[in-house]
């Protein structure tokens, strides 16, 4: 049974995370530009002298399907690479997946990843 590991990370860490995952044998992933709100707080922009608070900061969401047995390793790898020690580094979570299929071949399960 595969799992889906999702991580919210800082955008400039994406390249590093991708490379690190690749080096532990992860062959694919999907990334999405998202907006994060959290302890990190937003940023302040000015507009003709009026300040306004932008509550959301840009983040990237990384989604990786992995065999459940590898979830811990993948989480560790992401955590290590995405960590800058500063507030706003993000979260990682995993969810059990009921079914996975590769569209091209119709394969199911861990083979499909």
């Amino acid at each position, binding site marked *: 049974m595969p799992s889906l590991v999702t991580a919210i990370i800082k955008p400039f860490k994406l390249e590093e995370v991708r490379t690190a995952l690749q080096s532990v044998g992860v062959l694919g992933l999907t990334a999405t530009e998202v907006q994060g709100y959290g302890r990190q707080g937003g940023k302040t922009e000015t*507009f*003709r*002298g*009026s300040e306004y608070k932008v509550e959301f900061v840009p983040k990237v969401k990384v989604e990786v399907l992995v065999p459940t047995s590898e979830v811990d390793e993948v989480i560790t790898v992401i955590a290590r690479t995405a960590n800058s020690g500063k507030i706003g580094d993000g979260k990682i979570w995993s969810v059990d997946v009921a079914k996975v299929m590769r569209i091209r071949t119709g394969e199911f399960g861990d083979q499909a990843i």
Partner: protein
Amino acid sequence: MDSGSLTWVLVSAALVLFMTPGLAFFYGGMDRGRNVLNMLMMNFYCVLIVPLLWVIVGYSLTQGEGNFIGTLDHFGLKGIGILGEDAGGTLATIAFLGMFAAITPALISGAVADRMKFSAWAIFVPVWSLVVYVPVFRWVYGGWLGDRGSLDFAGGTAIHVNAGIAALAAVGVLGKRKGWPEEGHPPHSMPLVMIGTGILWFGWFGFNAGSALAANGQAVQAFMNTFLAAAAAGFAWCVVERVRDGHFTNLGAASGIVAGLVAITPAAGYVSGMAPIAIGVVAGAICCYAVRLKNRLGYDDALDVVGVHFVGGLVGSLTIGFFANPEYFGADFMEGLFYGGGVKLLAEQALANLAAIVWSFAVTFGIMILLKKTVGVRVSEEAEVEGLDLSEHAEAAYH
């Protein structure tokens, strides 16, 4: 008109035509992405309808006898040819002035952004042009205000103060945008704002220096003044922001440049030396504070037409009373205070602007009330939330 001057007037006219798209981008970039096409359309619409109105009837009404309004002698350009010694000079001037007529109502669009019904705007523009722009233009150029001695080189009173105060009247009737002022309305594309700014500055050389209607020393002086006042005002606005808010901003630079251009417009052919720098610095600093008035006074002038065009135009127009330098015109106009002329010119400047303000505000308010009672002036709340691009124009800016 000699061929050099003819070329200058034609080039200037083309430059001023280019300013309306420039203004559209300046405003449109500041707008949100779901309203930008409505903004562009409000501006482009002006340059579609007003030129026709201008050559058919508007120009004629600014000419001939009459202290308050001209005649219909040149209805449909009757009697205007290109032959003879004039060699098309008059026709070139009419084209040049047609560009001014087109951009003036476009200035107002920045105030009513994000909520005005396009059908109301489509009626507002020609009506306003005829009953506000044309008479005020006449008063200032060849009518009772001009005759009394007030000065307005390229349209500080006739255009910027006029459109700026009309913008205030219009938003008075229209009301605030949903969510204003709590919600921020950040510019959806600052590069578009800066494209507009670049075009505006470029075009404004035609606007101001072209108003000499000849390639002569006065045109050169107006050119130099346009250059220096814009730079000085942009710099002043940036410095105020840096000191007050901590940063040099692009929107500050852009706003300051425009404020300086507005302020030098009435004065461009009457001042010289370092005066344009002084005018620019004053205008840039004052407008940088003036754009905040709306928050204090509670009128939702979305893109600061009042703070930049009304205030900037007024500042510029009044500074003529100090800096006017008769050297540039022959002795038949009054000196400014700093050139020994006393307060007479300053008083005339104040009067001229006052007259324009009263007329423009009152009549604009009336037009808007009439529109409100008939076609309605405001889009539905739903349309406002969804964005006017889709609801008013069935278009989307980006795909």
